[in-house]
């Protein structure tokens, strides 16, 4: 992997609500290397979207960054002014949104919508910008692009619209592309097409991707590394193989257990609901839903234990003094595959 282009350290974000301060992001750290795809996985409300919005400086008005830093090319994004952020957004860091049906302006021709970032960031005049917009429109696979560039969003299907949203994000060749559940609103066949397109364009444009999703199935084919988020914290991170075949945190187990595989007969749900972040638990936030929870889980937050050079998990089960437990069958099966992979590699 290439140089480190983004380094998030101890990020803490609170939301001010009538009920009180919601501690949405609690000490999140991760990094992104050039050219790689990092997937951030977690259920709704785990803080995935908030984390990435803070990278763009697009947090809601009631959000407050309490601590931490986001280093991008040696400068802290969190210390930049709105004006400075406007020069980064869309040019260096771009974003693809979840719902293509609502994320395009219904009253503006799509050509103009794609050309806008060029006109803003590269001082390209309108005619040239539209010519470049046409190129990128062809690149994202819109047929008859010459004609369709003058059409409005409602004249396109959902999948086509997401291609257009991708075109908008990539038109300035950004260094980092944030994809916030880009396929969630699409049906499965279109999903696969969009994911293929993103992988293909990543090669051509040499961008790094932060891929946010709640769908582990999507992650397997896309990501180089995976960070699993729960209740505003990252609880495990590692390479895609390490997360899928040698997971350590019981929450990751639960996620994998609830994902259909060729051999699965029943899908298991994780019981209970995530904790209330108005008053987060002081120990492991997953303890209340964790069948393997120990006394200490309720008392003290587990630190990150190193599993390999790239793989860390925040669970007391990895402590040398922890009792030996047997993970669910599905996880045992996966770990066996992992052991074989390791043996083959050596």
């Amino acid at each position: 992997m290439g140089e480190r282009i983004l380094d998030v350290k101890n990020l803490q974000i609170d939301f001010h609500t009538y009920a009180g301060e919601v501690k949405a992001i609690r000490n999140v750290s991760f990094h992104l290397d050039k050219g790689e795809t990092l997937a951030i996985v977690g259920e709704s409300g785990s803080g995935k979207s908030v984390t990435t919005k803070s990278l763009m400086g697009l947090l809601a008005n009631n959000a407050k960054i309490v601590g931490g830093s986001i280093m991008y090319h040696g400068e802290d994004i969190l210390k930049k002014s709105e004006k400075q952020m406007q020069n980064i957004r869309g040019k260096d860091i771009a974003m693809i949104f979840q719902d293509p049906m609502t994320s395009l302006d219904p009253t503006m021709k799509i050509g103009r919508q794609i050309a806008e970032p060029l006109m803003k960031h590269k001082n390209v005049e309108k005619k040239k910008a539209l010519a470049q917009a046409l190129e990128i429109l062809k690149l994202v696979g819109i047929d008859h692009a010459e004609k369709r560039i003058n059409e409005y969003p409602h004249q396109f299907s959902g999948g086509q619209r997401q291609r257009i949203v991708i075109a908008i994000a990539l038109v300035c060749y950004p260094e980092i592309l944030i994809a916030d559940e880009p396929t969630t609103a699409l049906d499965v066949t279109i999903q696969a097409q969009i994911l293929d397109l993103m992988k293909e364009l990543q090669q051509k444009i040499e961008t790094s991707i932060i891929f946010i999703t709640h769908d582990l199935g999507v992650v397997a084919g896309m990501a180089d590394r995976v960070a699993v988020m729960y209740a505003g914290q990252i609880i495990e991170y590692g390479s895609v193989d390490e997360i899928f075949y040698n997971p350590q945190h019981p929450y990751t187990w639960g996620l994998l257990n609830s994902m259909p595989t060729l051999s699965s007969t029943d899908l298991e749900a994780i019981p209970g609901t995530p904790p209330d972040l108005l008053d987060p638990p002081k120990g492991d936030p997953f303890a209340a839903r964790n069948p393997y929870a120990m006394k200490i889980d309720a008392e003290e937050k587990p630190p990150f234990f190193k599993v390999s050079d790239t793989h860390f998990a925040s669970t007391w089960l990895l402590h040398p003094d922890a009792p030996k437990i047997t993970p669910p069958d599905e996880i045992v099966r996966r770990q066996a595959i992992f052991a074989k992979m390791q043996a083959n590699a050596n």
Partner: protein
Amino acid sequence: MKKYLLKRILYMALTLFLVATITFFLMKLMPGTPYSNQEKMTPQQIKIMNQQYGLDKPVWLQYIFYIGGMLHGDMGTSFQFSNQPVSYLISSRIGASAQLGVQAMIFGVFFGIIVGSVAAVYRNTWVDTTATIVSIIGKSVPNFVLAVLLQYYISLKLGWFPIADWGGFEYTILPTIALGVGPLAETARFIRTGMVDVLNSDYIELARAKGLNKFGIIYHHALRNSLIPLVTLIGPYTVALMTGSMVIENIFSIPGIGEQYVKSIQTNDYPTIMGVTMLFCFGLVLIILFTDIIYGIIDPRIRLNGNED
């Protein structure tokens, strides 16, 4: 599009015909006669007068004559205003009313959009509250009260503009403001509501993610999408203002059509009533057609449906 327009124009003609018919018979149901000093007239005189104005014939025959005349562009002769043709009466007076109406509308809508947009962008701050208070005052203070206040303070005390009468552009400024504050308040309210919705939409977030600044987002993305509900409002408002505001025209001594309309009703001046009503109606159906076309220009989704129709 041609077929659509043709169909719409046909409907317009039908609407005008229906309005003419209904107004004609309703008008005939009004009590009284066009003669202001009937008690002093002998039955003989009344008979002669009725014959002269064609009022001795049965109502249905009068109706047929009237419609027949209309089709030839003859709107009849006024009973009251020195026996002038109604078409001349209208054309000599509509200018002032229309100019004032259009000016008031441009003033109101332009500043309404600004006030509404600013209120939406800075919603729930003191700016928003101030804008809301201004709109409420603008909406609830009657324009004749405002007109008198403007005359007193701006003309009499400060002497900036003429107090009344109809001359050059400077004579139109105070009546324009007095008439325009209503539409301003209404526009501001509509734009604020529309824009608050639009500003919360995904495509505005995408526009922010592109790195556009606040003005670019408002001007290029939010405004156009907030205008749609406003278009509905503007059309009929414009007609109402153009065809004359009786009170304002009175206060500023403007030779407009509003004053004439009221007088014609009071005196049973049948041809003038019909003439002004038809003018109002024609303006309204025309504006409704324009409104629908403007919808299409602002919102491409509507345009497409219109074409298919």
